[in-house]
């Protein structure tokens, strides 16, 4: 009996248990509410259905959240991703719209390369502010968040740029192997990041920098470079997400593209079990977190509730997940059973910001 109890505890204690449980409950509730929710059908060689839609629509969020996971695990935060989505989408669409043959693959590749180049430069700017100058991440990236919207507007001259390019549209709406291409792009990015962080020492280095940048620098890790790299990767992920968002609607809107996405991404990361304090990160948790957020959004739409009201539900989910994961909250409710010592009373330990 003791054995089953401990196994039960191990399962509950697994970091993916609560996020996966939340996702499962949401899917189950949806299926009860609308029995056809989980059905998928094959039409014209493409799979269609709500689960496929959720996967396709969550692809940009997964991309942004992957980059955000790395940034957060270094103890930072990147608020500029939404603006970066808008900027990269705006540059790509602006370039394509000026070309005579919008359907040429060369044009689209050039546009993507240009936009990606700018995004990398902006990511490097964030990285320099945080890693070299040593500005608090939340504020360093706030600069680009505020100014970036203006930049995106400047690129599109305040207009909504509409394009008519099949290859570009494919990034958001194309299909491959019966599934939307967007899913494969997100999956490829996830595998790439996972391979680099979990098959090489990079992941461990990032976690050690997030745990204590000074200590890891003294141990011989170039903390500055690692932090810098995290912001550049985050910007690259945001740029691809920006392509996807603009490709979905075949137009770039400097004002609306990627609005609130930084907040959704942070939520996905937190729901996935990565601590905002840095030091540990869980890519699989982040992906489940992004799926939870998209499922929630889809559910709320399906119930004929306005998109803005879905924020209300998001608030409830955020607080619930955060409370479940907060050690102080858990300790309060399990103290009697497990005899856990009371939590420390110091409410937060400010992280030392270390200029590299």
């Amino acid at each position: 009996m003791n054995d089953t109890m401990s196994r039960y505890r191990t399962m509950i204690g697994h970091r993916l248990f609560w996020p996966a449980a939340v996702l499962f409950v949401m899917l189950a509730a949806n299926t009860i509410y609308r029995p056809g929710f989980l059905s998928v059908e094959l039409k014209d060689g493409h799979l269609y259905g709500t689960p496929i839609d959720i996967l396709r629509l969550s692809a940009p969020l997964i991309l942004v959240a992957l980059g955000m996971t790395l940034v957060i695990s270094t103890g930072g935060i990147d608020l500029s991703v939404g603006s970066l989505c808008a900027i990269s989408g705006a540059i790509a669409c602006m370039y394509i719209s000026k070309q005579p043959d919008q359907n040429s693959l060369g044009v689209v590749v050039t546009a993507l390369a240009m936009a990606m180049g700018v995004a990398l430069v902006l990511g490097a700017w964030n990285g320099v502010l945080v890693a070299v100058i040593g500005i608090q991440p939340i504020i360093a990236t706030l600069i680009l968040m505020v100014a970036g919207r203006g930049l995106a507007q400047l690129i599109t001259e305040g207009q909504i740029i509409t394009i008519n390019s099949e290859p570009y549209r494919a990034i958001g709406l194309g299909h491959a192997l019966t599934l939307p291409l967007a899913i494969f792009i997100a999956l490829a990015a996830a595998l790439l990041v996972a391979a680099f962080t979990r098959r090489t020492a990079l992941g461990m280095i990032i976690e050690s920098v997030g745990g204590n940048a000074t200590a890891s620098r003294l141990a011989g890790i170039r903390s500055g470079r690692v932090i810098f790299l995290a912001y550049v990767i985050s910007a690259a992920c945001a740029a691809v997400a920006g392509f996807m968002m603009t490709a979905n609607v075949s137009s770039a809107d400097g004002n609306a593209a990627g609005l609130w996405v930084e907040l959704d991404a942070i939520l996905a990361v937190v729901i996935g079990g990565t601590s905002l304090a840095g030091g540990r990160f869980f890519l699989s948790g982040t992906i489940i977190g992004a799926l939870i957020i998209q499922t929630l959004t889809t559910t709320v739409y399906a119930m004929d509730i306005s998109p803005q009201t879905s924020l209300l539900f998001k608030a409830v989910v955020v607080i619930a997940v955060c409370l479940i994961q907060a050690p102080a909250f858990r300790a309060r409710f399990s103290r009697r059973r497990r005899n856990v010592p009371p939590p420390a009373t110091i409410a937060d330990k400010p992280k030392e910001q270390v200029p590299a």
Partner: protein
Amino acid sequence: MTTGTLTAGRTRFRLPRKQIPVLATLALLLVMYGIGVSQYTAFSNVQVIFNVFIDNGFLLVVAVGMTFVILTGGIDLSVGSVVAMTAMVSAALLQDGMPAALVLVIALLIGPTLGLLMGCVIHFFEIQPFIVTLAGMFFARGMCTFISGASIPITDGFWTSMSQERIGNPQGNFVSISVLIAFVVVCIAAYTLAYTRLGRNVYAIGGNPQSALLMGLPVGRTRIAVYTISGLCSAIGGILLSFYTLSGAPLIAVGMELDVIAAVVIGGTVLTGGAGYVFGTVLGVLVLGVIQTLITFDGSLNSWWTKIVIGGLLFAFILLQRLIGIRYK
């Protein structure tokens, strides 16, 4: 009395370290005003200054609340949504025919209640302010659309009279009642931070929470108090905004929290907490207002330049704070 500095043997005048960011903001404000006056003759009109206050009165009140939170080293992302929710609730209740006085009381209670709840979650469950106030932001914004998906006009007599009342001098320059309310809020906040026990605790916690706790200061109570204060200021800001626009709209004040944080930072308050003044925040709001006015006067610049300029200024001021921090360490 002036001989003191001469006989002390100091060869040059030293700026007090803590005041440098505020003085820099003041200098920037004067330079921007000077540019405005030299470029456009109408800029020297006193009413231009009054208009900056009239257009940004609600921003000023909210920024004052945010100053308290940032001084403790926290952050409150919910302010813009709480402003919108307050305006929305007022508009909806007035539409249902509730008396204005009762509506005011209810509207002014919602913000601080939400702030109190957020403060409690932050303190008791040790969840980061960023994430708790983010949830608060989602909640308040969701409530706005939950109340109504469309804009609700306000036709109540008290509201319209507050909106149209002009307090002015014989030359025809005037301010609105909102400006006076904002002024009162600023004075109370400045007094609280400078001369009361609460103010001292706020600075102490921002300086170093562990030390504050070891000194026996009520860290938890103070922390909860600043989020409640911020909620109250947001609620007052929401009322002022509803005076200004005479309506409640679900998407009003989107992204305002960033303007507010920018104003506080430009005003010289250090984001890690512990240093800053309400006066600086007033200057920060004025800087944002004057940028807007300059861009309006220019006419050829598009409104999105405002965002780029604010971003640039934010960068300059953070860099300044950082440099001061390095030099004196």
